[in-house]
């Protein structure tokens, strides 16, 4: 995996050093105080498993990386670690630039507030000032195609519209790093194509992209580099073609494109 870490490369925007995170297998298992406050030990306790361990890689600005692996192999966890919404049990995650996470994008939206209030709230929580949002507001609404529903409470939108407005807001953040976690599977075909074009636009603008997908075609379309996760290990870090080839070799899956 050192092949991509050229010595004269600029400072990486994302770097993970020996990162590991473990989860409990049984949610109902007893927690005790010792467990909670005890020092972070390297060994795994009974009933726990390492979702990811010994993960090392760095990402240069402008790279587009696809994360590949079967369900439950730590892909989303990896994205969450990079976003900073979960913390590693060992190792260091260093992200030097701002992140626009397209992960659980509808999470910040409040049912009882209007679309307008929700846009200001969510964009604000991601660090935009009121002035910036106002400047971008029409563009966001136009992208989401819900001009008629600006003052409708969010809960009355259809589920497709909810995702559309959420994508529109987060994708306008224009942070240097964009994280995408299979959100593109929703929405109708026309809107999906619009999202793809938006992502390509962002990529062309020099963004760093980190995408989790099961869709081989999407991965080939956006990514140049791939990370293959299997059983909590980073098995292969190489070109997206090599990674997909290895993945198909291991699991023999013809993805339904």
């Amino acid at each position, binding site marked *: 995996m050192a092949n991509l870490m050229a010595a004269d490369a600029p400072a990486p925007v994302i770097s993970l050093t020996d990162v590991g*995170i473990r*989860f*409990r297998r049984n949610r109902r298992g007893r*927690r005790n105080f010792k467990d*909670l*406050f005890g020092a*972070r030990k390297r060994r795994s306790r009974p009933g726990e498993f390492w979702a990811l361990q010994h993960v090392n890689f760095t990402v240069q600005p402008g790279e587009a990386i696809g994360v590949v692996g079967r369900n439950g192999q730590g892909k989303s966890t990896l994205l*969450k670690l990079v*976003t*900073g*919404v*979960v*913390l590693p*049990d060992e190792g260091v995650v260093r992200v030097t630039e*701002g*992140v626009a*996470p397209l*992960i*659980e*994008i*509808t*999470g*910040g939206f*409040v049912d*009882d*507030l209007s679309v307008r*209030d929700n846009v200001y*709230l969510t964009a*604000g*929580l*991601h*660090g*935009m*000032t009121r002035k*910036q949002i106002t*400047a*971008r507001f029409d563009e966001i609404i136009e992208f989401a195609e819900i001009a008629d529903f600006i003052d409708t409470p969010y809960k009355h939108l259809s589920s497709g519209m909810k995702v559309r407005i959420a994508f529109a807001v987060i994708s306008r*953040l*224009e*942070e*240097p790093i964009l994280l995408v976690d299979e959100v593109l599977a929703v929405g109708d075909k026309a809107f999906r194509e619009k999202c793809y074009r938006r992502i390509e636009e962002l990529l062309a603008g020099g963004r760093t992209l980190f995408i989790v997908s099961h869709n081989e075609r999407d991965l080939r379309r956006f990514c140049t580099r791939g990370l293959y996760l299997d059983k909590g290990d980073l098995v292969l870090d190489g070109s997206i073609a090599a990674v997909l080839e290895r993945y198909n070799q291991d699991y023999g899956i013809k993805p339904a494109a």
Partner: protein
Amino acid sequence: MRPEQRTPIARYGHSLWLLTQRDLRVRYSTSALGYFWSILDPLVMAGIYWFVFTQVFERTVGDKPYIVFLLAALLPWMWFNGAVSDCTRAFLRESKLIRSTRIPRTIWVNRLVLSKGIEFLASLPVLVLFAVLFGAPLDVNALLFPLAIVIQGILTVGVGLLVAPLVVFFRDLERAVKLILRFLFYASPVIYSTTDLPPELHFWAAFNPLTGIFSLYRAAFFPEQLDWYLITISAVMSLSLLALGMLVFRRTERAVLKEI
């Protein structure tokens, strides 16, 4: 246009304010009476205690006018009580948002304390109104009001930081906290004054940080309630609780994020 590069502290404040605003907006946009509710609750409580202790029983505790004496501690109590009981659900209720944004996690506690604190400030005109109606003279000690608010803020944040993460792991704690709060209401000088307690309890009452805080609030109308000994102990207790809360919060944060 990138989100404006600002210092982490400015961003923290910005997010905190947005969430507090959201809380208040949701609360007031979904109920017709809005602001009225946040003052109705303490008013009804005060009305009941006033009736029981001045009309039914012969009042031997507290000061005259009793309704002002009551409200001066009841309103801050509502802040403490509301914020701490909301904190039991601080993570559970916002789990979706916590999973999708990386704002510093202490915000989920602080915003609850702040929005309840704003409601507390908004309910203060009621206290002033009753003080005028019943002719309670305002003392110069009213200038100490901000100090009381600061100490109470520290205390409430400390307790919130302690309670919020622990509830995630021990769900029973949610109900235990409600019970403890009810006990604490009677263990704190809300319907009585510390001086009404038997002398052997004075020492122990001082260790309830609310004792000193309420004495500070009350001093605005009842200067004889001012007791710097109580206030000092309550300030020290509040700061230690804040330190303990921050420690517990920091140690459990990692596990909380996995659990929700």
